[in-house]
């Protein structure tokens, strides 16, 4: 587990979205996603509906991924930039329920998610979700988001 200073941990816990990148045929594909940080393992989880499953297909082909935390909008944290590079594993063994174990994390970032869940049948395939767990290999952090300077590096 990679140890990071408190301001980096706060970024992981509170930023609502990250920029998640997979690699397809050598080309990066970056999309905004809701990330969950698992403090016990130091791993990250993102989930994806089968409707928007290309990223999960990319992870199956090439597990090297990254998550950039750069947008503090909607959080009370300061503006930083933290890049996590890691190995992703896409789990689609239980599309209907596998992601539910992360609902407590989801509620913290999107408190209204239960209203969507109440209409689960209406958005049927949206709730068929692939779980992508990421084991970090390297973390690069730019305090105050100043990317014109070299980052602090953790995990090497």
């Amino acid at each position: 587990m990679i140890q990071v200073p408190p301001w980096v941990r706060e970024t992981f816990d509170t930023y609502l979205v990250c920029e998640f990148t997979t690699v397809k045929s050598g080309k990066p594909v970056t999309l905004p996603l809701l990330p969950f940080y698992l403090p016990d393992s130091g791993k990250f989880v993102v989930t994806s509906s089968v409707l928007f499953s290309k990223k999960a297909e990319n992870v199956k082909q090439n597990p090297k991924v990254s998550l950039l935390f750069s947008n503090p909008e909607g959080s009370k944290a300061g503006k930083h930039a933290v890049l996590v590079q890691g190995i992703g594993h896409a789990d689609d063994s239980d599309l209907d329920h596998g992601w539910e174990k992360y609902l407590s994390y989801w509620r913290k970032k999107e408190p209204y998610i239960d209203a969507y869940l109440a209409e689960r049948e209406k958005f049927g395939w949206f709730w068929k979700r692939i779980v992508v767990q990421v084991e970090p290999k390297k973390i690069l952090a730019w305090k105050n988001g100043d990317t014109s300077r070299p980052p602090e590096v953790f995990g090497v």
Partner: protein
Amino acid sequence: MIGLDYQRLGNFRYAVVTLVGDDGFPFSVSTDFKILADKKIVLQKPALPSKLDGKRVNVLFNHITGLPGGGYGDRRYMLVWGTTHEDHGTLRFEPETVSEWDEKILPFDQYCAKSAPQGAKYLGRLQASVEA
């Protein structure tokens, strides 16, 4: 470059530049950008371990608005692939293709409906692998 709406692009606050590094991992970094009068996109040059001159990258422009009760709305992004060129301490970005979503233009339920073929494709492949 077809389909890039420079007016809407100009409404984003910052850009995220991503390339694939020599180690095979994606490398993303946030930076400021501006659009010049002749529609050239100029990125502030971040500190990177590798040179960006002539690099194939994608640039994500993403926006959310935090909600008072928590969570966020007003979701929109533009993901633009292209090439960066170092130019007097900045990066000139030449866009080639774009993929985007703006929930004010395509509401979420319609976005889901439009994406149904991808869902069907994924489930079809999964079913085939289970049966194999």
